[in-house]
């Protein structure tokens, strides 16, 4: 070994010197760091450049953000003129440059004489031109060809990503934005667009992250936008609480944005802690902030519809139509709402007025029309056709209508097999449940029906409809107290509704709470003074508790309201005859028959009165007239049979026959009436509608709704009435 003899290598002082240097370095760094006080933040509050947003400006929808070019971009152009750019665009649009390499593109005539850098600048300008022409594919192909040094600058990088996303090249666009944000972490528009893109690509988890980042980098209106879209992403993820929080935050930054309010309302709708009123308030705010946009109005109406407030929803839809009448969606929902409310005529009218519907919508409209025309066969056919469709756009609406059809037809099979999934739907969920409860009521499955009705009533304590059905069912199931409480509750919630009040009164009448019934009808009449049906019910109630004068007055009023309303007159005559005022009765009957000589019931009554009064001539002649009108009229036949001999012999056995004869024609009469009604419509009696329409053509839709909605119940109670009398 040739190692030197003495100590070698680094000596201790050298090592110490190294250590000293390191220490000094460390101390310098340390000192610098100690001086660092936590970084402050500077928040700039600019003038809000979007004051026009409360009016319909597209900008509060979530369009991709395109920042205005900063002035320095224009100044640094030098000898690149607009003409050069134009020529380049022209040249490029004629050739297919997608397969050409950059240096070949550089050989275009218009680019001659420029330096390499300037050529690229011109090409980028050309790309911008393509972009503003909407040719996004050309834009991103062209920018993609530019060298990295150019492509990775702020504006080219941004437009590259933007063009990709507009051209639906989602994956590439995502990567482009990621790169852009790595290079320019504070480029606000990129941060927002990246999030929007992820939202579009349904990558909500990632979008949440992206918007959180965007929130940190953006300011002013963009911050509001970032918050809103973060909320949107959360909403899509089903995190409604989080979403509502973000929407509120966005509103703080930009309180005039209708879209945000709308989104907030939608989020609140999903969160149980928000009450109906609060949600509605938010919807109202959204509607009022954008006076020309139909969407908030439509959404608000949909919400009302889903909360079973059909009358308010109707107004909402009207408002939405007013803002933008041609939207199929609105019209469709409007007609469905009418249908739900029972206003068939209007539903039909609206449905017929819909233009520019696509296939699926067309089929739905057909179904609505069939339902509102009460053409159930046709409705079934349409439903079958729709069933055949593999994919149907408005599946839930169809489901709802189909359910409605089944309910009107009392289709037990369908109800039994019903897919309960529809009950979860945000719009038609509750209406479907209501319909289902009604269907169960009609098919007499009271227990089941009540269960459904109770849930509805519990969940939607503000819906009169829910309580109404619930009350009816409770009464059916013998829970008198609870039933009347529910009805009363419904009545308290919505005392203006004729339908609610009438059913309440009717049920009261049925359960012999006559005074209560009269009170309610009196209240009802305050709002709907021309309601004949109510008046008749009132008369009946008065009659039951012996207030015959009042009863008479009520009948008279009912008759006077509408001269053509012979039923009231007949009832009055009957009342008089029951009370023994035969003469009065006969006068009324005569008057009645003068107006309608073919009123069989009236003739029967007249014949009987005559018989009873032993005026057999008149009796027989009346019976014969009856037979002439109706050959098979049993009452007339009997009367003729019985009294033909009595005309001669004057048999003494009258009482029994009279009772029989009285009974039978009555039944006939009610049956007859029912069959009449059945002809014109199944459950929804047209006559009622027309009654409502005729006396007061201007009567508000609300009233007519309620009336028509009541019909099935009305009939039922009527039937019950007659049953009772039989007893």
């Amino acid at each position, binding site marked *: 070994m040739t190692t030197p*003899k*003495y*100590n070698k290598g680094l000596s*201790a002082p050298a090592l110490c010197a190294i250590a000293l240097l390191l220490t000094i370095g460390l101390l310098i760094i340390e000192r610098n760091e*100690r001086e660092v006080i*936590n970084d402050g933040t500077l*928040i700039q*509050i600019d*003038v809000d450049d979007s004051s026009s947003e409360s009016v319909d400006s597209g900008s509060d929808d979530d369009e991709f953000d395109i920042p205005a070019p900063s002035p320095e971009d224009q100044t640094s152009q030098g000898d690149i003129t607009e003409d050069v750019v134009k020529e380049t665009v022209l040249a490029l649009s004629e050739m297919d440059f997608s397969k050409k390499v950059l240096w070949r593109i550089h050989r275009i005539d218009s680019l001659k004489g420029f330096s390499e850098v300037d050529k690229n600048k011109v090409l980028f300008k050309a790309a911008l031109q393509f972009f503003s022409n909407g040719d996004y594919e050309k834009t991103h192909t062209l920018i993609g060809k530019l060298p990295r040094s150019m492509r990775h600058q702020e504006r080219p990088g941004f437009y590259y990503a933007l063009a990709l996303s507009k051209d639906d090249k989602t994956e590439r666009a995502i990567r482009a934005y990621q790169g852009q944000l790595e290079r320019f972490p504070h480029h606000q528009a990129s941060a927002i667009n990246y999030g929007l893109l992820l939202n579009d690509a349904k990558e909500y988890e990632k979008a949440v992250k992206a918007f959180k980042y965007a929130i940190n980098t953006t300011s002013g209106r963009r*911050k509001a936008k970032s918050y809103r879209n973060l909320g949107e992403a959360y909403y899509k993820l089903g995190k409604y609480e989080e979403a509502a929080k973000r929407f509120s935050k966005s509103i703080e930054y930009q309180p005039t944005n209708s879209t945000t309010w709308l989104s907030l309302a939608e989020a609140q709708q999903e969160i149980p802690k928000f009450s109906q009123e609060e949600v509605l308030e938010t919807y109202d705010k959204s509607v009022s902030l954008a006076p020309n946009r139909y969407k908030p109005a439509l959404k608000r109406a949909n919400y009302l519809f889903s909360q079973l407030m059909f009358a308010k929803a109707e107004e909402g839809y009207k408002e939405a139509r007013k803002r933008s009448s041609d939207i199929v969606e609105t019209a469709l929902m409007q007609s469905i709402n009418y249908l739900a409310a029972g206003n068939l005529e209007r539903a039909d009218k609206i449905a017929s007025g819909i233009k520019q519907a696509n296939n699926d919508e067309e089929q739905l409209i057909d179904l609505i029309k069939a339902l509102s025309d009460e053409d159930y066969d046709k409705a079934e056919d349409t439903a079958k056709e729709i069933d055949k469709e593999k994919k149907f756009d408005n599946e839930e609406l169809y489901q709802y209508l189909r359910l409605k059809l089944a309910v009107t037809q009392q289709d037990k099979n369908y109800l039994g097999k019903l897919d309960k999934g529809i009950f979860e739907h945000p719009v038609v969920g509750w209406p479907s449940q209501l319909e289902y409860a009604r269907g169960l009521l009609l098919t007499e499955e009271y227990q089941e029906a009540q269960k459904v009705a109770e849930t509805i009533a519990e969940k939607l304590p503000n819906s009169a409809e829910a309580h109404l059905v619930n009350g009816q069912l409770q009464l059916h199931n013998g829970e008198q107290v609870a039933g009347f409480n529910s009805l009363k509750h419904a009545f308290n919630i919505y005392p203006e509704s004729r339908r609610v009040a009438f059913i309440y009164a009717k049920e009261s009448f049925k359960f012999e709470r006559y005074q209560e019934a009269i009170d309610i009808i009196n209240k009802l009449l305050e709002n709907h003074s021309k309601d004949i049906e109510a008046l008749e019910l009132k008369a009946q109630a008065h009659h039951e508790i012996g207030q015959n004068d009042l009863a008479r007055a009520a009948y008279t009023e009912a008759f006077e309201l509408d001269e053509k309303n012979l039923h009231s007159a007949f009832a009055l005559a009957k009342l008089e005859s029951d009370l023994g005022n035969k003469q009065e009765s006969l006068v009324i009957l005569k008057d009645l028959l003068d107006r309608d000589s073919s009123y069989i019931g009236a003739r029967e009554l007249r014949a009987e009165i005559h018989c009873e009064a032993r005026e057999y001539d008149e009796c027989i002649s009346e019976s014969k007239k009856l037979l002439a009108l109706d050959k098979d009229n049993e009452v007339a036949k009997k009367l003729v049979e019985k009294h033909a001999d009595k005309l001669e012999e004057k048999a003494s056995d009258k009482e029994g026959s009279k009772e029989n004869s009285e009974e039978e024609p009555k039944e006939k009469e009610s049956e007859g009436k029912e069959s009449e009604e059945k002809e014109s419509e199944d459950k929804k009696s047209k006559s009622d509608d027309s009654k409502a329409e005729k006396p007061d053509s201007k009567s508000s839709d609300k009233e007519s709704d309620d009336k028509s909605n009541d019909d099935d119940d009305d009939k039922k109670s009527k039937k019950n009435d007659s049953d009772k009398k039989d007893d």
Partner: protein
Amino acid sequence: MLKKLNRPSVWFAVLGLALLALHFWWQPSHVKQLGAELLHRYSLTMTFDAGNEDIVNRTYLPLTNDRQEVVNESLQSGTLEFTNDESLVGRQGIWTGFSTTPIRYNAIISSREQKYDIDPELDIPTDYPPHLKRWLEPTDVIQVNDPRILELWMNIQPKERKLLSTLRAIHDYTYNEIEGAPFKGTTDAITTMILKRASCNGKSRLFAALARLNGIPTRLVGGVILETAKKKTSHQWVEAYVQGHWVPFDPLNDHFAQIPHHYLELYIDDQALFSHTRNINFDYIFDIKREHIAAPLLRFDNDEGAFFNAASLLAKLGIENKTAGIFLLFPFVALLISFARNVFGIKTFGIFMPMLVSAACVYTGFWMGLIGFIGVLLTAWLGQMYFDKHKLLKIPRLAAIITLNTILFIGIFMVLGEQTPLQMGMMTLFPVVIISFIAERLSNMTQDNNWGELFITSMGSIVMITVCYLAFSSITLQSFFALFPETLLLVMAAQIFIGQWTGLRISEYMRFKGINKQNNTLGINQRNRDYVYRLNERKLLQLAIDKIETKKVLLQHGVPVPQTLDMCDSFRNLDEFVEHLKDFNSFVVKPNRGSQGNGILVIVKNDEGTFVTTSGKRLSLVDIRYHVSEIITGNFAQDGQPDTAYIEPLLIEHHGISKIANLGLSDIRIILCNQKIISCMLRVPTKLSDGKANLHQGAIGLSVDIETGMTTKCSFKGKELKTHPDTGFDIVGVQVPFWNKIKQIAENSQKAIPLGYIGVDICIDEKLGPMVLEVNGRPGLEIQNVQHKGFSGEMETARDNT
């Protein structure tokens, strides 16, 4: 060249640097995360005298928002029930129940400055969302609708009614025109206006009144200014609503549209910070400390994606960030210590003791820690002296000293009263750590009256504690080791380098400064690495330490050694052994595995049961018994293990040497390397060395010429001597008797015990001639100073020749 680089330290360094470079390239964001973060330790103590009643006490606690963050918090509520009521106003802590102990709330708070830049073109909006309307309403103390306020505004309003100018006018008025005064209690807006003097809350209310008058929603904010202090003052300022932001203004300290980093927000609106049951003598105090902390120890969920952070792993185990920082720095500090010892040659009590003490200092604060350390040291030393008098055995004595220290600490805590439990916990670590390492060394040194050594070692310890403390508290190092744990490879490389480095230590430059002219001095590093570790087998080193065994082996090889009269290795034989001593007139008691002559008792005369030592001290049999038992306990052994005591007959110095000094037995140290005699010296005892021939203890070293055996030079404490300082005899030019035989014996000894590098101690008895006292596997290097020349070159030649 390449061969030279093929060393483990280089490999580790290359690997470490490569990983580090990769890390920098892969995660450039990590560099940004290095660094300090200013944190505030916020502590609120509330005291009350509850009597026998239940109490209710509420206060606002800090919460995390955009600009401030509660990093971690702890609460001592005693027996009170605590509920946390978070609302839009703030986070209110509510304590209910009965308790006598104070409530303590502690939190670490990180807060930032926030500035707002308001566009001067901004108009004052005319309408606001409903939830902001309440910030425009007048209240009892913010009298917006008072005509006087309106009048005031008419006088101070700016020319242009823009948002910014309006706020500016209000701020300027409230800051400049209203004099700041330490009012207590509530001052309303009107009073402030009239008095033109107010504290923060009056100014804030006037600000709010004027702003609300102008249709700018404004609210009061209450909080505390974070500054290192114990105080009772809270603070109030205002926030005005501007386009979705609540912009802060402080009209007392002139912060316009900005909030400094040390403002802590507690609540919003005009509230009372504390509310409590009446008549409970309520009192409170804020205790706030500012502190820099390495950010990576605290923040792991960095958005920029810390893909690895060693501190986060520790935090998962529940280790507090301070402890984590210390833990991560242990290897580095160990490197510092090895550097200090092997390159500087700084002597400390215990090798890694400074590291532990400085780690404790991190918790207690440097001066507290140092004072604690010195206190413990003093207690241990005094205790040692006291217990020594009463002749306690080693281990019970240490135990007694620990007890003494604990008593001392309890006393300190009683005096100091309030200390945080953390400090207390760490302070109790001191006695155990330090005593086990130091007390023994300390007692040895004091026993040997080695004051210079003691001083140097103490200073060395303090210096090292300081250095280690600085390293431990370095934020840069903490964050660097947390984020870049691959740096540990570099530390490893440095440690290996130092392990392989054989240069002269800085302290050796001092020690051999007279002889290092030729750069031929052998340093301790080189001795250990190149000779002891390379040439001397472990087994033989153990043998050399065991003197009885050594003597047996030497005897077998015909090397003359003193006779072993008796020996004793356990307490069972102790009495018998001591009894046996009576039979001898003169003898030497030695510990079998002692070093540096410690524990050797020389009895020159047996005066009827009283034994006389060389220095004339008279000892009883009990004293000797105690000494022997100390030897058996291992008190003098190099490794502290139980030892054997043995007796040798007292050797009579040969007249050829006793003519130099007759104070004790001199001996000749011969250093051999591979059968070649490298160096030799004659060690002559002095009065200072108490008859021991040990240079450390003050004996004189005489350099002896290897060929002739003549003493040539003498150096004593750096000075050259011609005569013995005590006796005045000539000491230069003396012929050592039996010189050739001595050389022969030395060579034979190395043959018998084949240590490559060996020091043989030989003494010459008047009757028996030269005899080997012991052999040394790690002979010291002081002989170079005695010989006045280094022997590094000679050693190398001798080593490489075989």
